[in-house]
């Protein structure tokens, strides 16, 4: 477990990148740190391998402060994948991938075995690629090597700083899927920084939402979608994504405002607040004593809705039309 205890980071120019942040990153899970640019997410991550040092507060790995650990030894025990890949262009793939094992003084045999194993897992044929140079590979292949390099020293923790953001959409999707599968096999503690919410929702076990150096919410993708802590989180995830991930019944009636009718159809009217779930509206309309619902927002009448209009709304949502926003 990685624990941040009241961590503040102030840079020389006075900007506060992190403000009194306390949080835990669970062992063996893929934790995504997400937030808009400049929110301090990369700073937060770099504190784990001591590339950034807290101005105050402490970072602990398994309850041991990283201040008490040798910097170089600490970094060698933590895998690190960076955004712009950062492979060494003058070294072969074999040498790049074997960097940390070499630094740690592993035997050549053990190193080779480990690298080949990881290359196979990430879908790079060792025979083909080991003797090539990074610039002879595509971006996606290079970042696969970046992942192999990070895992080669058999770290318990792997830090990934927007590792897929520079890749084309197809490679990015592929690598996200592969990372997910890989994580299920190896069960490392992965800390993954991104600004891409789709990526976060897709791969994360655990998400930390940051804004302006403060934690806005932590939880699973499910928690974020169903219980966004505040408007910032809701907007950052995006109503669209929330809807896509949520079943129709869990949406608010107010989201169907374009299907409201102004004329009353039928006799039996029941009132309902527009902040209720669609599910509740359906349940009411199923009852024989209800023909139509009168919808109120803040005590003010806004329109009627009946089974036909609900059905239309469902159909429209199914084909993906989003006329409500």
């Amino acid at each position: 477990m990685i624990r941040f205890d009241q961590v503040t980071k102030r840079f020389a120019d006075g900007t506060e990148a992190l403000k009194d942040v306390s949080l835990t990153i669970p062992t063996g899970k893929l934790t995504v740190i997400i937030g808009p640019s400049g929110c301090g997410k990369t700073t937060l991550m770099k504190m784990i391998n001591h590339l950034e040092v807290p101005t105050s507060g402490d970072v602990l790995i398994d309850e041991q402060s990283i201040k008490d650990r040798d910097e170089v030894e600490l970094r060698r025990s933590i895998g690190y994948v960076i955004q712009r890949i950062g492979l060494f262009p003058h070294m072969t793939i074999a040498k790049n991938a074997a960097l940390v094992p070499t630094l740690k003084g592993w035997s050549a045999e053990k190193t080779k075995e480990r690298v080949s194993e990881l290359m196979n897992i990430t879908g790079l044929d060792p025979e083909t690629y080991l003797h090539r140079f990074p610039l002879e590979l595509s971006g996606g292949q290079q970042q696969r090597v970046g992942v192999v390099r990070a895992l080669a020293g058999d770290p318990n923790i792997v830090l990934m700083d927007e590792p897929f953001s520079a890749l084309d959409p197809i490679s990015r999707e592929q690598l996200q899927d592969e990372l997910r599968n890989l994580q299920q096999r190896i069960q490392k503690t992965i800390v993954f920084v991104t600004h891409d919410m789709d990526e976060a929702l897709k791969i994360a076990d655990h998400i930390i939402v940051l804004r302006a150096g403060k934690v806005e919410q932590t939880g699973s993708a499910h928690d974020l979608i169903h219980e966004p802590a505040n408007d910032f989180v809701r907007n950052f995830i995006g109503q669209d994504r929330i809807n896509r991930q949520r079943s129709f019944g869990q949406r608010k009636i107010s989201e169907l405002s374009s299907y409201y009718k102004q004329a009353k159809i039928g006799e039996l009217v029941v009132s309902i607040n527009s902040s209720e779930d669609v599910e509740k509206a359906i349940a009411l309309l199923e009852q024989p004593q209800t023909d139509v619902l009168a919808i109120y927002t803040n005590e003010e009448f806004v329109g009627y809705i009946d089974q036909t209009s609900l059905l239309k709304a469902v159909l429209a949502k199914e084909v993906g039309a989003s006329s409500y926003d």
Partner: protein
Amino acid sequence: MTDFLETIQSRSDLIQQAFFEHIYLSFVALAIGIAIALPLGILIARHRKYAEPVIGVTAVFQTIPSLALFGFLVPLMGIGSNTALIALIIYALLPILRNTYTGLTSVDSSIIEAGRGMGMTRTQILKQIEFPLALPFIMAGIRTATVLTVGIATLATFVGAGGLGDVIYRGLQSYNNSLVLAGALPVALLAISFDLLLKWVEKKATPKGMKTQ
């Protein structure tokens, strides 16, 4: 033409001695120049706030006309090969220093951060990453310095340090065009052949993986 060949034959002792003096001056100056400029370049690449003043000072030396620099040194150092060597070293510094600095500072910062993040020490980063990647630049600087030094060493004759300048000067004084040529031609050939040789070395120094760029 026959004059020229005769001159070479009759003055072969002088020309040979001057030739070796010339090579001696150029290479001792270069070796010392590299020994000073290379570590200094690494140092200012580490502490960049000193880079501009240090490079600035060497650049000022560079702008002093070479003959004037020899002139300045004579009252201080007297005449002899040491005076010539100091002047040549001063000229060799700037290209090597500047290229070492540029080479080291132009290494992609993300590559260095990757190295740091994976637990490489500063020395390991310098030896295994920065230096190999900066080597083509450094070699280019040494090449420039070599050509420069071989050329300027011709002036060493004025401080009594010998070299092929001696031959040229004697030829000029005695209106002996053949003798002038017998001194000038080897200097030109030396400069050109070292330039070509070092160009080849520079190419060899480019890390294999970088050539696909």
